[in-house]
């Protein structure tokens, strides 16, 4: 086993684009679930809006890159409105079902042959990222420290992305210590109580859905740009649950919870994956136990185990305060 390789790859993963994508999605989920108590299981739908916004915007509508970014955000807002107007009155479990169903509707529609022209069907879209990488001020070469070094374009994406993470977190921080955030936290606990005090609960939930949805669209931007392509099947329900697990790991209802959670969780996944690969390579694991092909599947088993274990043993995550937890809301 080559521990050096394991170490290098894990360190590389710390701030690599997968952590970034997860962090942005999880910040949005945190606004929804952590602060407002909205059980949104369709976060990937917002990410898809962002991703297809830039991809279809540039390739199908032939918009400039900047305008298609706005299109992605507008689509996410539109989705929040479409989804929110009818569903924000629903109980938590129904909201979960409706949001997960809507994200599947988006994915299945995007991949269908009917919309191949707009969305590229099942093979998706590419060739839209140039507008972004044209802005790259970093010359060719490798940037970073030690194993966490990235080529110029990737480094540019990461710098922009993590800056965005910081800005979004700052925004969440400011909002949640304001009276606006107080209303959200009240809703998280008992929306009828808040309603009885004269607050327009549905209106606040909608604002929360939109805000978190726009963060979701940011994560879609990062996802699309990191791959330089958009493939519908990357926008399945597992994306949402990965982000959800990351948020819970860090601590729902904490500003840094989803960011730290995403980084740690992604790194953990890479670590375990590489330990298995190395152990496999060294012949420590027989094919009957785990074949080389299946190492990728282990990460999802791990997602499940982490979700279960956290929920059972430490629902407040690493940084959360159990006294303040949203989970026993109805």
């Amino acid at each position: 086993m080559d521990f050096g390789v394991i170490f290098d790859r894990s360190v590389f993963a710390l701030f690599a684009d997968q952590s970034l994508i997860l962090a942005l999605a999880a910040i949005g989920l945190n606004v929804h679930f952590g602060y407002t108590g909205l059980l949104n299981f369709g976060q990937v739908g917002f990410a898809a809006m962002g991703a297809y916004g830039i991809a279809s915007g540039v390739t199908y509508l032939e918009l400039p890159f900047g305008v298609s970014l706005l299109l992605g955000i507008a689509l996410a807002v539109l989705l929040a409105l479409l989804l929110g107007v009818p569903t924000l009155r629903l109980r938590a479990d129904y909201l979960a079902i409706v949001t997960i169903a809507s994200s599947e509707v988006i994915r299945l529609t995007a991949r269908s042959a009917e919309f191949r022209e707009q969305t590229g069907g099942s093979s998706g879209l590419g060739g839209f990222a140039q507008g972004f990488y044209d802005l790259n001020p970093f010359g060719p070469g490798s940037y970073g420290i030690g194993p966490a070094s990235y080529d110029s374009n990737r480094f540019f994406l990461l710098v922009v992305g993590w800056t965005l993470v910081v800005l979004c977190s700052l925004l969440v921080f400011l909002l949640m210590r304001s009276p606006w955030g107080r209303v959200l936290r009240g809703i998280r606990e008992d929306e009828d109580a808040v309603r009885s005090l004269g607050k327009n609960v549905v209106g606040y939930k909608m604002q929360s859905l939109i805000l978190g949805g726009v963060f979701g669209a940011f994560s879609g931007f990062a996802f699309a740009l990191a791959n330089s392509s958009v493939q519908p099947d990357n926008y399945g329900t597992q994306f949402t649950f990965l982000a959800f697990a990351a948020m819970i790991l860090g601590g729902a209802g904490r500003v840094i919870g989803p960011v730290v959670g995403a980084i740690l969780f992604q790194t953990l996944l890479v670590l375990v994956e590489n330990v298995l690969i190395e152990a496999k390579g060294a012949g420590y694991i027989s094919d009957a136990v785990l074949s080389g092909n299946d190492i990728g599947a282990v990460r999802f088993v791990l997602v499940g185990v982490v979700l279960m274990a956290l929920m059972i043993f430490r629902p407040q995550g690493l940084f959360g305060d159990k006294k303040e937890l949203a989970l026993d809301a109805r």
Partner: protein
Amino acid sequence: MLVVPSSTREETALGHRPAVPAPRRALRAVLLGLAAVLLLLTGGAPAAAQAPPPPPAPSAPAAPSADPSAAPDGEEPVEGIAGTLANAGEPVEGVEIAVEQDGQEVGTATTDEQGRWRVPVPGPGDYTVLLDVETLPEGTDLRDEDASSRDVTVREGQGNAPALFLLGEGRSGGSSRLDRAPQLIVGGLQFGLVLAMGAIGLSLIFGTTGLTNFAHGELITGGAILGYALNVGLGLNLIPATVIAVIVGGVLGALLDRGLWRPLRKRGTSLIAQLVVSIGLSFVLRYLYLIYYEGSARSYAQYSTQSPVDLGPVGVLPRDMVIIAVSLLVLVAVGLGLQRTRFGKATRAVADNPSLAATSGIDVEKVNNIVWAMGTALAVLGGIFLALSQQVGYQLGQNALLLLFAGVTLGGLGTAYGALVGSLVIGLFTQLSTLFIAAELQVVGALVILILILVVRPQGILGSRERVG
């Protein structure tokens, strides 16, 4: 810790309830049971033709690969087109079949001694399937001479899309909407009944324990795989294999409740936390299935290859008739049982108000346990039936889960008859909608219906409203 039996409301309400066995022991039992099943699966699964596995591709530090959600590495394409050639019930071997997309050949296959063939395709989409008439044995012809090609739409996660070539005596078949409708109705009825097997369990579990079980799809998949292990692995005929699988499923369901859900209820884990736990469980199970059963979809040893029997305007496979009949019988029995028996009444009492039921002498945890056993057994049966028409694959149940929710919510969460009616509507709807929309969008149609129902009538069609204050 998982096993700390904290004093929850149940305990205060159930002061007279007998002490439960240590949950830790139960948990171990579940793990053992699962391990046994896994062993059965790995031992029983045929040594799949071991193509040298492609080297695992970790995200090498320079490679721009960002994909937190993509399917795991090395997974075979799950989609394919398959069929069986038979002439008057006799399989036809050695016929060459080619699949094209946009004029490009995607793959070819030759029918085996059972008349079966399968061509893996790179992904969902529209394909053309061509049968090489030259390779047909002497004396065997296509019923319709011009019908040597078929246009097939492969849906996502479908496993095998069927392409049917009819051999033997010629018969001209039109395909106007009106002609297709009866066939689709039969298909929809069958699909709806099979969905109902899963939906009733889902609904009962919600009704009695309050859990929205996102792992129910994996119970269905587990059933299909368990059936496969007994049928293909151990060589049992599918009928006894199904019976055994249903029984084993019931036991495993009860163990799952004892080992996981009951301790969670006991320690007062909130319903939302339990819901998230069920999502975690669904991931664990689904990807363990993938690891130990492998990705490719496979068929059972019997009843996979049949030719339809003509029943007036529709042709029905004999196995589908059996599926419809057995499903109806089972569901009616379950429905009557819930209405008539003592257990049924207890179930409804618990669903109505667990604390009140407890004070009136009902052993709530026992009811929950039986409901879990029953729900899992039904899911196993549903899984095997579903796999008969769609093949066994690790995503079988996951793909059905949202349709189950649609059926259950259509009828109102927590009511058994509601789940049955709702599932039938969803089954018929998904089938009949293909008359008007592309087949690949039929699930979208059903999900849109689900969303609309929840929006217009959040309590479902048969459910009742919540209280305030």
